């Protein structure tokens, strides 16, 4: 066991720091890595989860057509909303996504504006929701889970995630310092050597993807910079965030509704003007503040295109007249470009499919790094307590807790993902609150797995839960074939490639879980291992 004593060298004290900073937050980090890796393909996940949209995948609608259809829909359905948000179709997302904030009623008193958010997904060809299409939050849920968590106010989730991320940064840096043979062991993976194998695996996925791990942890903190470190804004702007945002000039300031109403000017001329200003780059997002009021404001934000910087320029128009008011973000300050580029590297919206696949693979390496680190702690601690455990027949409380949490998180989370995708296909289409029911399936399945893990954190339970995760994930493409007409038999031959990619990725992850369950069984069948004494010896080596 790693202890901190006076007079230790730097490496030993860093080993202590690495062990405990990593262990404290590893289960949250595992969730963050898994949901974050899924977020790299959140549009693709959302698409897979909306099979009714697959038919319109090959239709090409121009941004102007899509925008005017969405406008017409919003004028019918939500003319008195406080704000409209339109996301136009792009290469990764064929649908129009709409959100609006409906006017507050007496029931909404004391609730945040988020509670009044209404969302719709439109078919760009017709400009209306597809009749009978299932409602789902799709990949958006996994994306929000990555930094907001769930079942708690978003800001709490963000503070918890920020705390864990800071520990992660500490764990990465101390891990590099404490690794004695970073170059000599660069490619080393010794199989069937107990604790030594776990250490090798942890080192391999951590060191070989180290540029990614460092980048993603640091830029992750930068994404929520102004939440974690508001003091600069407080000192210079006296806490007036609006003044700060106005000076940053990346989005139009919000307006209070005026008393007079006035119809909105058509959107196409504004789009044409914006696209001309951006030398042909397409628009991506349209926000309308106080639609159908005399002081309505229309903001059109450019597609980020092939820029790493996420802060894309915005053109602001008077909603009633269509006159240009401002052109924001054409020339950004260096600090803002730095921040935008770091956030861009984190979210990787710029990444074309192949690069996205590399980010996805690195994210999986991150999840494996956290998992192998957590397992290594448990294996090492069990070995150093082996004599006491053998004498008393009881596992120390802390060790049992960590083993159960490891099992519940590492084997449980794939079950939760599998349950989410199964629920998407199996729940009745017209179920009320269907998106919430899918999310309940995610957490319900995870809670069940975590409870089983707490009840009996044994090797047999590892096999049961890993096998359950494998069956659920391998079952996803099968279920897709039974419930939709865009299954692997079709998509492998005629595309679309993204849907085939989803099925194949989930299938591969399921097979990997199945292989893990099978290997556990194989090793259990041969309990007397020749390598056992050697593993004990290397335990001494590592903890020195």
């Amino acid at each position: 066991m790693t202890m901190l004593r006076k007079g230790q060298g730097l490496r030993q004290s860093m080993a202590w720091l690495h062990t405990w900073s990593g262990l404290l937050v590893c289960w949250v980090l595992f969730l963050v890595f898994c949901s974050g890796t899924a977020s790299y393909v959140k549009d693709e996940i959302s698409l897979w989860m909306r099979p009714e949209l697959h038919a319109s995948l090959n239709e090409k609608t121009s941004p102007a057509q899509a925008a005017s259809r969405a406008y017409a829909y919003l004028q019918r359905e939500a003319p008195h909303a406080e704000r409209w948000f339109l996301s136009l179709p792009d290469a990764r997302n064929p649908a129009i996504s709409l959100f609006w904030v409906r006017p507050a009623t007496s029931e909404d008193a004391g609730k945040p504006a988020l509670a009044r958010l209404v969302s719709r997904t439109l078919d760009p060809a017709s400009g209306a929701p597809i009749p009978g299409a299932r409602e789902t939050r799709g990949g958006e849920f996994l994306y929000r889970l990555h930094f907001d968590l769930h079942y708690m106010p978003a800001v709490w989730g963000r503070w918890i995630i920020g705390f864990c991320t800071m520990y992660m940064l500490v764990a990465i840096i101390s891990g590099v310092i404490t690794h004695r043979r970073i170059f000599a062991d660069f490619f080393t993976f010794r199989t069937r050597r107990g604790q030594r194998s776990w250490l090798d695996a942890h080192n391999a996925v951590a060191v070989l993807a180290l540029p990614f791990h460092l980048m993603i942890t640091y830029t992750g903190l930068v994404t929520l910079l102004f939440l974690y470190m508001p003091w600069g804004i407080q000192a210079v702007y006296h806490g007036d965030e609006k003044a700060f945002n106005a000076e940053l000039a990346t989005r139009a300031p919000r307006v209070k509704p005026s008393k007079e109403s006035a119809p909105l000017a058509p959107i196409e001329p504004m789009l044409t003007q914006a696209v001309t200003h951006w030398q042909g780059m397409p628009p991506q997002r349209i926000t309308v503040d106080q639609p159908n009021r005399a002081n309505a404001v229309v903001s059109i934000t450019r597609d980020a295109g092939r820029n790493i910087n996420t802060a894309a320029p915005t053109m602001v128009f008077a909603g009633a007249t269509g006159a240009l008011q401002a052109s924001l973000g054409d020339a950004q300050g260096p600090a803002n470009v730095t921040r935008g580029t770091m956030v861009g590297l984190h979210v990787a919206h710029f990444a074309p499919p192949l690069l996205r696949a590399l980010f996805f693979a690195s994210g999986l390496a991150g999840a494996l790094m956290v998992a192998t680190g957590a397992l290594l702690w448990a294996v090492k601690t069990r070995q150093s307590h082996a004599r006491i455990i053998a004498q008393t027949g009881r596992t120390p409380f802390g060790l049992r807790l960590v083993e159960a949490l490891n099992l519940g998180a590492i084997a449980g989370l794939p079950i939760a993902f599998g349950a989410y995708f199964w629920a998407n296909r199996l729940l009745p289409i017209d179920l009320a609150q269907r998106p919430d029911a899918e999310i309940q399936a995610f957490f319900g399945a995870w809670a069940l797995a975590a409870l089983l893990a707490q009840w009996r954190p044994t090797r047999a339970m590892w096999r049961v839960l890993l096998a359950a995760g494998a069956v659920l994930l391998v079952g996803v493409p099968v279920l897709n074939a039974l419930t939709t007409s865009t299954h692997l038999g079709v998509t492998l031959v005629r595309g679309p490639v993204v849907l085939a990619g989803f099925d194949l990725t989930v299938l591969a992850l399921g097979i990997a879980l199945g292989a893990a369950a099978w290997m556990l069984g194989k090793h259990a069948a041969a309990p007397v291992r020749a390598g056992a004494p050697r593993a004990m010896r290397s335990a001494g080596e590592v903890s020195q």
Partner: protein
Amino acid sequence: MSGAASLPVVPVWPACVAGAAFAVGGFIWLAHAIDRHHADLFGRGAQLSGARVARLRCQGALALALALAACVLAEGWAFGVIYWAGLLTVGALTVVGALTWTPHATPRLARASIAVGVVASIASPWLMQP
């Protein structure tokens, strides 16, 4: 920056194939310069001469530099370096697997990878026609 939209969309996969192949070949050579992996190949006690270590390291470093060149030439500095970092990670993990499960195939794998890298680089101006 704003002119990016007018550029034709060029397929990037030939550069990725070249980058990945150079990364795998280069990392195998770098690994062969490490005592442990040298012993896995030639038996315990097989001594690595200083000249051989220097040559393997040189070859390995050169291959990784070629991987960077393939990425940067195809995608420019900003994107090229990101591609390179990702391909190095995936390539190195592949090499770990190869050294663990088929160490004796790694010298051949290194030569084959470098050959694939060279072919992909030479052919990429044609493969990259949009």
